[in-house]
């Protein structure tokens, strides 16, 4: 069993109440941080831990915190991004549902570190039950003196609010989230200025993912150095992975970063292999916006080395043969799944969720969706496949926020790795409606290269 930091007590009955959470060592981090550490020391611990943002981009959290501008007399805000809505990702909802106090505790410690006296948890509108759970937890924490005026007699005040969003994927982009929180239309802002300089209501703001904030708790409890020992290289600590798709045991797993992908899929501790004795065809390793990989490249690098679950290892080989850890939404496809259909489904999502602010994304996502729909239903042409690549290339990198990239990458990578299947959809317009292309050679194991390139 690997170490669990966030989900250690997930199965304890009543862990969602303050009482049980306290018995299991909860709110130790708040006491330690507020009573014995200065805000700068907390930031220093987080920096030492090497914690990287768990929302998708993987930006070091400690560094993000240290960028926060601290002008005199201006309020600072911490905003927790709980607008989790990427297809394939459901770790934050799980965490908020079962251990809401982990998030609240992380919020208190993080707000203390940043000197924020008002903090917000922006929860996706569809997650109404989680909003109620969080509000109840906040009320409990407030009654116990962990929130409100003069926390634990230290003179530090913190008010924590839960704000329901309108249920838009784009509001998970930090500046769109801030716009939405201010009560405006959730359009991403043009950066710079970054939120660390001018964020919520024009004040310096830090926006962090739920999991990043919750991970601050074990970092403060055990120390940043201890946390940094877990994991591999620059990917330190543990990560929640939302495993879904054709797996024997889909669900949320906490892994130590650096776990081999093969072990994650096939070991009984985690996903337990592919359901119904089928074979793995492809995976999306980090939520719908990261490039899709065929089974052989999922398990091994192009040179035959085993691939690990970490920020660097999943990205090994760039976009040609790699992918990204993203938000940890691990989707597995077995041999019966149609990649064209899946790509169309993802594209449909991005078409629906594009905010419509900048032209390449507004028009391009719809175009991709329509072309993929045509291919999936057997009306496609060979030229459509190149058209997809060209359109996705014209969206990528030309937009204000990363949603354009997120819409383009899955399409570009699906065509890159599964071109045969797209061509089959064009050549067999009738057959593709009733049957699938199958596994083909997507799972042919990559032989370890005999000659090591380095030597």
């Amino acid at each position, binding site marked *: 069993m690997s170490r669990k930091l966030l989900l250690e007590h997930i199965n304890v009955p009543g862990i969602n109440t303050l009482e049980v959470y306290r018995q299991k060592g909860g709110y130790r981090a708040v006491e330690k941080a507020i009573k014995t550490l200065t805000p700068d020391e907390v930031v220093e611990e987080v920096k030492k831990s090497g914690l990287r943002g768990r929302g998708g981009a993987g930006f070091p959290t400690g560094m993000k915190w240290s960028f926060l501008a601290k002008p005199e007399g201006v309020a600072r805000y911490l905003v927790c991004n709980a607008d989790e809505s990427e297809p394939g990702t459901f770790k934050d909802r799980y965490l908020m549902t079962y251990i809401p106090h982990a998030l609240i505790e992380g919020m208190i410690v993080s707000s203390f570190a940043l000197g924020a006296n008002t903090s917000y948890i922006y929860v996706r509108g569809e997650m109404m039950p989680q909003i109620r759970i969080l509000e109840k937890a906040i009320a409990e924490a407030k009654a116990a003196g962990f929130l409100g005026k003069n926390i634990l007699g230290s003179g530090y005040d913190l008010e924590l609010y839960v704000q329901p969003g309108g249920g*838009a994927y*784009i509001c998970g982009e930090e500046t769109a989230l801030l716009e939405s929180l201010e009560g405006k*239309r959730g359009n991403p802002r*043009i950066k710079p200025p970054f939120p660390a300089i001018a964020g919520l209501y024009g004040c310096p703001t830090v926006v962090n993912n739920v999991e990043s904030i919750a991970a601050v708790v074990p970092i403060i409890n055990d120390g940043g150095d201890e946390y940094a020992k877990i994991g591999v290289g620059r990917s330190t600590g543990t990560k929640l992975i939302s495993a879904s798709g054709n797996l024997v045991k889909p669900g949320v797993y906490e892994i130590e970063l650096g776990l081999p992908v093969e072990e994650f899929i096939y070991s009984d501790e985690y996903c337990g292999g592919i359901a119904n004795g089928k074979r793995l065809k492809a995976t999306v390793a980090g939520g719908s916006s990261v490039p899709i990989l065929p089974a052989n490249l999922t398990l091994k690098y192009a040179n035959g080395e085993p691939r690990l679950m970490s920020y660097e290892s999943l990205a090994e080989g760039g976009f040609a043969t790699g992918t990204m850890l993203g938000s940890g939404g691990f989707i597995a496809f077995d041999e019966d799944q149609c990649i064209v259909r899946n790509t169309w489904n993802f594209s449909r999502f991005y*078409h*629906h*969720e*594009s*905010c*419509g*602010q*900048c*032209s*390449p994304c*507004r*028009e*391009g*996502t*719809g*175009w991709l969706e*329509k072309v993929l729909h045509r291919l999936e239903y057997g009306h496609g042409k060979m030229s459509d496949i190149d*058209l997809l690549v060209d359109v996705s*290339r*014209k*969206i990528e*990198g*030309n*937009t*204000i926020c990363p949603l354009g990239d997120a819409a383009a990458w899955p399409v570009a990578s699906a065509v890159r790795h599964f071109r045969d299947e797209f061509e089959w959809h064009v050549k067999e317009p009738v057959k593709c409606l009733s049957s699938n292309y199958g596994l083909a050679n997507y799972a042919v194991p990559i032989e370890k290269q005999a000659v090591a390139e380095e030597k």
Partner: protein
Amino acid sequence: MDNLVKVTIDGITVEVAPGTSILNAARQIGGDIVPPAMCYYSKLEGSGGKCRTCIVKVSKGSEKDPRPMPKLVASCRTTVMDGMEVQNITSPEVLEARSGVVEMLLINHPLDCPVCDQAGECDLQNLGYEHGLQKTRYEFERRTFDRIDIGDKIQLHMNRCILCYRCVFTADQITDKRVHGILNRGDHSEISTYIQAAVDNDFSGNVIDVCPVGALTDRTFRFKNRVWFTKPVDAHRNCDHEKCTGKVTLWYKGADVLRVTARKDQFGEVESFICNTCRFDKKATSDWVIEQPTHVSDTSVISSNHYETFKPLPVIKENLALQEANKVELEKTEKF
């Protein structure tokens, strides 16, 4: 003045005040290297960054940090740094990306230029001419909306809209009561006035001027004439509205004033916003004091019917002083 920063755009160096955007620095240089701007409007705070036609490549970030920027950036919203080097039309990458953006802008555009009032003074038309493909690659039905009359003077033709948000900023910043915004999202987003409320405000007509395409049109001018058959003349009147300068362009056809608009500069931006009385109600020559014919760019289709090609008299060719005096006209003859 040692606090000016140096920026090089397509090999031309200019010194500008700190905080200037790349686009405005390019406008100070002028000429072909000015990136096109569909959504940026210097008079509207917060505009820009949306249409992505003004993207440029920053090949050197600044003197201190010479790393190039990883992505193409929107020049209207990126401020210059000292020693920055920018590539606009000299970078094939930029031109390709820009033509990609133009293609995206056009896929849902109805291309009804033959019946569009904006034709001839349309930014999208110019862009399409410069960067567009001969033929669209989009083979699906275009998104359509119904035409909406917002008030008795303005018509919204949403099919043509490229969602630049200029009119939203105008409604927000120039007019008092905002009744104008964006509904829905993605490619279903539309400019709307919430339950078709009439836009009723002294300055609402300015949304027509800021619209880069023919989505917002003047109902008093609608289908009256093609813009290149009309003759623009600068004029003014003493408007009693305190915010209105009364400086306008009158568009004549024969003796009739068909349309009144605000005066536009060389980048297609109005010099000052005008009130609705000036725009919609004062359509007689007697209401105005005429100043001069409006300067229209030679490349504009509007100028094509009005001004004959200059044929220099033999005496000019011999006299240096006369050549100097007629420099602009002589350059034109060489250019064409």
